[in-house]
């Protein structure tokens, strides 16, 4: 019997297959099938909607907590879809025994982050389950925004376009891991968790073709999805990847690939080459985009193929996340 495994939720290939073979199969419709993070609803006066659930261990980490994450995740999904987030809903599943003080801290973060993003929490729901039926607190948020004339979708991506990331890669993944496992690197890594809508408002230009937030599965998995949907190939350059020194050394010690680590406050932006410089400058003028940089280009070639040019000049195949990376050196 096939059962749900943790990897089905990791945002990698198994998640992708689950969506295709189960959710789309039974629930499929024109909106859902776009497989976008947020969907624009025609006939609803330009309304966009997105939903996300949040489970994270630990609940509190350097740079944020589950409450902040719950707002950012949904706001960002709307924002990278070209919408302006306006309202969110907040549904909580609480485990019996959760200290009220912790809950209050989380809710304060929700409030603060919502204010920063300029969204209002407009309705909510709370369920409490018996001890052991949940891990302290699970949160679901649904975001509602309105559609702008920003035309961002994978179909617009063309060979020659440039791939930009709004900042350093893998911070959230390493922050969570080191917090959870008690790993102390040179300088502690902070989660990058942040709402991106204001940053996007700052740099958006019509030459921006597509945006995504590379959360679970990381930059690699997100670019794989985009390359497949757009029917193009992509080439990244290892030397261009922005990495905090601590993230770099964490990856080197632990044998992790930063391209597969989660980010919660970064956008991947595919732009026409003629506006790349301008978009970059605008990004860099915003506090959340200071480290924005080009990381690669879109190419002709096998649809969905993502390659990385390494420091040594050779190329490496960058696939979707597939479980953990097991040792191969023989």
């Amino acid at each position, binding site marked *: 019997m096939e059962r749900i495994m943790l990897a089905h939720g990791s945002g990698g290939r198994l998640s992708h297959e689950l969506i295709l073979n189960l959710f789309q199969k039974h629930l499929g419709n024109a909106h859902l099938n776009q497989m976008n993070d947020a969907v624009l609803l025609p006939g609803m006066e330009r309304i966009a909607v997105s939903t996300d659930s949040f489970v994270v261990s630990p609940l509190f980490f350097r740079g944020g907590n589950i409450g902040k994450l719950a707002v950012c995740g949904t706001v960002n999904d709307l924002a990278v879809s070209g919408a302006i987030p306006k309202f969110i809903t907040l549904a909580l599943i609480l485990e019996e025994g959760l200290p009220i003080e912790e809950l209050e801290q989380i809710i304060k973060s929700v409030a603060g982050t919502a204010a920063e993003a300029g969204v209002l929490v407009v309705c909510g729901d709370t369920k409490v389950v018996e001890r052991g039926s949940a891990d302290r607190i699970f949160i679901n948020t649904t975001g509602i925004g309105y559609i702008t004339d920003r035309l961002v979708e994978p179909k617009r991506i063309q060979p020659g376009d440039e791939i930009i990331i709004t900042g350093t890669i893998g911070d959230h993944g390493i922050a969570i891991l080191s917090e959870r496992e008690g790993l102390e690197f040179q300088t502690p890594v902070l989660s990058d968790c942040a709402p991106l809508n204001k940053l996007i408002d700052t740099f958006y230009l019509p030459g921006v073709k597509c945006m995504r937030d590379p959360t679970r599965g990381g930059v690699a998995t997100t670019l794989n999805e985009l390359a497949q949907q757009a029917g193009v190939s992509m080439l990244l350059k290892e030397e261009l990847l922005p990495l905090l020194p601590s993230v770099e050394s964490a990856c080197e010690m632990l044998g992790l690939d930063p391209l597969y680590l989660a980010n919660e406050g970064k956008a991947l932006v595919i732009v026409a080459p003629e506006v790349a410089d301008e978009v970059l400058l605008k990004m860099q003028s915003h506090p959340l985009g200071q480290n924005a940089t080009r990381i690669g280009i879109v190419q002709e070639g096998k649809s969905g193929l993502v390659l990385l040019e390494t420091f040594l000049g*050779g190329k490496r195949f960058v696939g979707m996340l597939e479980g953990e990376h097991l040792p191969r*050196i023989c």
Partner: protein
Amino acid sequence: MKNEAKTIFFNGIVQGVGFRPFVYKLAEELGINGWVNNSSHGVTIHAEGNKLDLFYDRLLKEVPSLAKIVTAQVIDVEPRYYKTFKIVESKAESKADVLISPDVATCRDCLADMADSNSRFYQFPFTNCTNCGPRYTIIHDVPYDRALTTMSEFRMCKSCEEDYVNPRNRRFHAQPIACKNCGPKFQLTDGSGRSLPGLGVDQLSQGGILAVKGLGGFHLVCDARNVEAVRRLRERKERGFKPFAVMARSIAVAREQVNILIKEEELLTSSSAPIVILERKLASRGGLSEDIAPGIQTLGILLPYAPIHYRLFEGPYDFLIMTSANLSGRPLIYSNDEALAELQGIADYFLMHNRDIYHPCDDSVVQLIGDEIVFHRRARGYVPLPILMSSYQVETPLLGVGGELKNSFCLVAGQRAFVSQYIGDMEGYENLQRFHQELESFQRVVNIVPSAVAHDKHPNYQLTNFALEQPWPKCAVQHHHAHLVSVLGEWDRTEPTLGVICDGTGYGDDHCIWGFEFLYGNSSGYERKAHLEYLGLPGGDAGAKHPLRIAYAYVKTLLRGEAWEKTKPLWRPLSNMERRILDRQVDTGVQLFQTSSAGRLFDAVSALIGVCIKVTYEGQAAIELESVGAGFLQDHLEDEESSQKNSQVLYSFETRVEEGVLILGVRALFEDLIQDVLLGVSKEEISYRFHMTIAQAIVDIALQLEVGDGPMVLSGGVFQNRLLTEAVLRNCQRHGIKVLRSRSLPPGDGGLAFGQILIANEVL
């Protein structure tokens, strides 16, 4: 009088190797009439006369050196009363079932031609004949005929044509025949493409680095005694400490640097002309640059094998670096355009010719271990010779894709398995492309189109994905099972056998990373009888590049309390942060991969005793560890055979049974070994003791397993370690255990694909 006419069929390597002229001459000598021709199934002879038995005997006995008869059949026929013996033109059959010869080192006769100022082959750097020259590397398709080789571009001159059709000439039907009037040409250029006179001898003499196009691809070449040139080459190639191969002018000159046994001499001077790994003479280290093979006591030596090499040795040097021209992690460069583009800034000069290479093929690398040849890399000179089986029969033509690193693949149909040349590490995208390219062209040369595929069980291997995408039936094969069956297949044995597989890493059935395994089985299945205890490998492949981290994690896991505290001084090269993180990894298991790898055990010991703490090429820590241990043997233990002494130097180890499986425990081994380190015992001695201990443990466990008195297979890349392997062989001999090892494939992952197809053949 006896029956007067017979038809004889020979199959095997019988075309393009001077077989028909040989038959012709023998027939003339014995007064036999009839004919000989090439057919799609080999060579057919119709012979009439009264010395037919003698004729047949001598045909078998005196076959040309490059020929290999695989099957022979004789039938009695009615005589037709021919008056002469003739070579009949071959019928142009579409697909021939004939084996293609590997490339062959230049023969003596051709060297004599090159030295003869009256010959049109005088100094001609492409001279060849039916006994030597390019074969596999220039062949597009079968049958082997000039039109289907990269020689088709060159039109024979009148003299060459005369030789080509004259059965008494050494170049009769030599497909790549050419002379200085009609053949390919070399051109020397500088980095900007400007033509220069000569073949680069002056440039080499002055310390220049040349990119030279040879038989199977480009080499980077420089004077091996020029310290400056060698250092520049190493820097430009970003090669870390990986040793360079050295071409010696002659075997006599090579002897100044290395010890050469008779069997090693045979290998060096064989028509395959591989790189042979040889023991360096301690006394003469001064001669060659230290940068050639840093940290190790061996040298990879090869002799000139193509006419151009002899021309290069017209210079005043005795040794040339001859390293494959490929950039780190990328495939061998074999076309002029590629060379000019990619070797810009690495080579100062380019010596290129206008005959295309069709199958890029690295030099083969071999070593004599326990009196038998062991392949480190199998390519030029050996590919595409098949492994011929009689105990296995493959009905569905199969592809075995091989492993992730040092990949070779295998195509099999019927009773012939063809293993491709070494391709490279599949994590490089360009290497993966090369795999696809060679898979396509190899199918044509060996005339096998697969319709099923075997692959490794590892979920992250690039070629696992490739195999899963194929529309064919597929079979996932456990890595070490394939290593075991590869050896069984080479020896044409099918019965269940105990195999000791000492290896880096392979994906295990329990999702752990295996590597020091005692498997009992055959192509139909196996049982895991014993293995090294599981230890946590921190950071996986990243950790494998930092063997001191492995050592730390292993020792931290194995030793507690005071025993652990005592080891503190050993970890000085690790930063506080590294130690802190490793401590957490050992405690929580985060990014800690449970492994029974033999390779990582050797790596850990290498780092622990200070031999190698940072790895710049695959296997470096273990290779340097072996070198250090072998040095101890050379210096101190001429009487190594004495079992008394052996037992004194061993470290402790323990065996225990867990769930019916025998486990080799190494806690005591590390305790003893660390004791020696702290007492200041030399690295040489510790390494030697460690090797001897593992050799002892292998045989002890084999005996404890009591799986009958059949032979025991040794396989896996760790058995490219001569010090270990020879100790295991001695121990086995002492206990009357017969050993089977790889003989025509590498024991490492280059032999994997062959094992995969034999196992898949049972399952599919």
